[in-house]
């Protein structure tokens, strides 16, 4: 157990150091959620006047939850890019040979993804508060909101990790991010679910992210809703993608 943890901590330290020393790797994932937040919260706030828009926390808070979850999952996906790069450059293969406990490898990347997202989340939260975001939820509610985001961050990492370890090339990057992007934008991004019309309403109703999004918005508003569905969905996704990542690691081991 201790060697697994040692591998994980060493790998997380290495990934975080590489990230901080390379602005080209660190800045785009940091800027993208901020840009989305500015564009959505600033440019679309008039949507709160659409008949039936009943979110009481203001449009900034409404969009903050989406961008927070988006940044969380992409924090995981971008770490997946790093895993693919490690395979392309031979580092991951050397790691497979030298790590006494290979289970620690996924754990290390997971810790790195979490640290990476925590930095982004801090900046995003500060910007949102400066922009005048109203927070109706209590400390416990906010703990729940950030807890949901952490789970989603790990789901994103495990999904991308499974792809990266199977394909072992950075060319797999579109395969890691495009499905995530689709899932994100097939949820009620701009208006609540009941205001969506047509096929996108039908898709959003069964989209797992919708539960997380609605629960998150309820938490920041101070009116928790659908918490069991949201945390249950996140736990199921986590379990499924843990198997996906672990079998990906097994494939990488077999490939040598």
């Amino acid at each position, binding site marked *: 157990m201790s060697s697994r943890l040692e591998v994980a901590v060493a790998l997380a330290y290495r990934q975080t150091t590489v990230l901080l020393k390379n602005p080209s790797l660190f800045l785009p994932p940091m*800027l993208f959620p901020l840009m989305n937040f*500015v*564009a959505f919260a600033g*440019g679309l706030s008039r949507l709160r006047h659409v008949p039936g828009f009943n979110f009481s926390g203001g449009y900034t808070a409404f969009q903050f939850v989406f961008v927070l979850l988006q940044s969380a999952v992409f924090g995981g996906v971008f770490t997946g890019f790093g895993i693919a790069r490690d395979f392309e450059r031979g580092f991951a293969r050397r790691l497979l040979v030298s790590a006494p406990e290979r289970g620690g490898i996924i754990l290390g990347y997971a810790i790195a993804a979490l640290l990476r997202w925590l930095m982004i989340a801090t900046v995003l939260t500060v910007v949102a508060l400066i922009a005048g975001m109203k927070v109706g939820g209590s400390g416990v509610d906010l703990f729940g909101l950030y807890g949901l985001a952490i789970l989603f961050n790990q789901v994103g990492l495990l999904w991308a990790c499974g792809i990266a370890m199977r394909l072992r090339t950075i*060319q797999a990057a579109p395969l890691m991010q495009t499905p995530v992007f689709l899932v994100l*934008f097939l949820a009620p991004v701009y*208006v609540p679910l009941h*205001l969506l019309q*047509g*096929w996108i309403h039908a898709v959003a109703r069964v989209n797992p992210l919708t539960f997380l999004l609605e629960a998150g918005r309820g938490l920041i508003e101070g009116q928790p809703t659908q918490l069991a569905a949201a945390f249950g969905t996140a736990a199921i996704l986590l379990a499924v993608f843990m198997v996906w990542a672990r079998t990906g690691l097994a494939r990488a081991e077999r490939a040598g």
Partner: protein
Amino acid sequence: MEVAHQVWLIARRSLLRTARQPGTWVPPLLFPLMLMAVNSNGLRAATHLPGFPTHSFLAFFIPFSFMQGALFASGIAGVDLARDIDTGFLNRLALTPVRGSALLLGQIGGALGLGAAQAVVYLSVALAAGVHIDAGVGGAVLILVLAVGAAAGFGGLGLFLALRTGSGEGVQSMFPLLFFLLLVSSMNLPRNLIEVGWFRDLATINPVSYLIEALRSLVIQGWNGEALGLGFGFTAALIAVSMLLAARQLRVRMTRT
């Protein structure tokens, strides 16, 4: 060799190179369509806002696809030139009688070809989805011209970035900043309906808003001289400025070589 012939040879190479790499042109073709499908439905509720200029959010949102396609064109033009710098092709070309202007105009060929193909596809999909072009057939042609012009303008910026940074990664890392121009424009709502003052101000000083509004006017308003004048004016200015910057940067790079 005439300059026109030089431009043609380099443009043909650029076009063929783009066409032979589906990984280069498929995502820029499909991604804006995907976003158009998702956002035009997700934001349909906006048409209920008092003062919203049309009942079809798809018709309102179509210019976004053209502009996003043009942004992708900037990446393609820039990354291709950066690769030529990286592989030494540009240095070898410098030993031939090819003129700098021919090099720049030719290098943008792939982006222009893709820009034109994208514009035709987006317009066809929009028409198939039931969008009516208020300005008629002439308006549809003008939409294609403006879209290709925007691709040329952003393609020129891509060339400048490639010559400035000399690396594909450098060009790619600037993409989010160019995308930001699209995000802080009137792409999602008309400027008079943007509620937040600083955002409305940013959208007003952002040239991309005028490109979008010119395209949009042809779809939902018909012939609006002011919108078209501003749109074509800013497109011409973008092409002129970006090519001027690229030409200056080419001279700097050639001097270093």
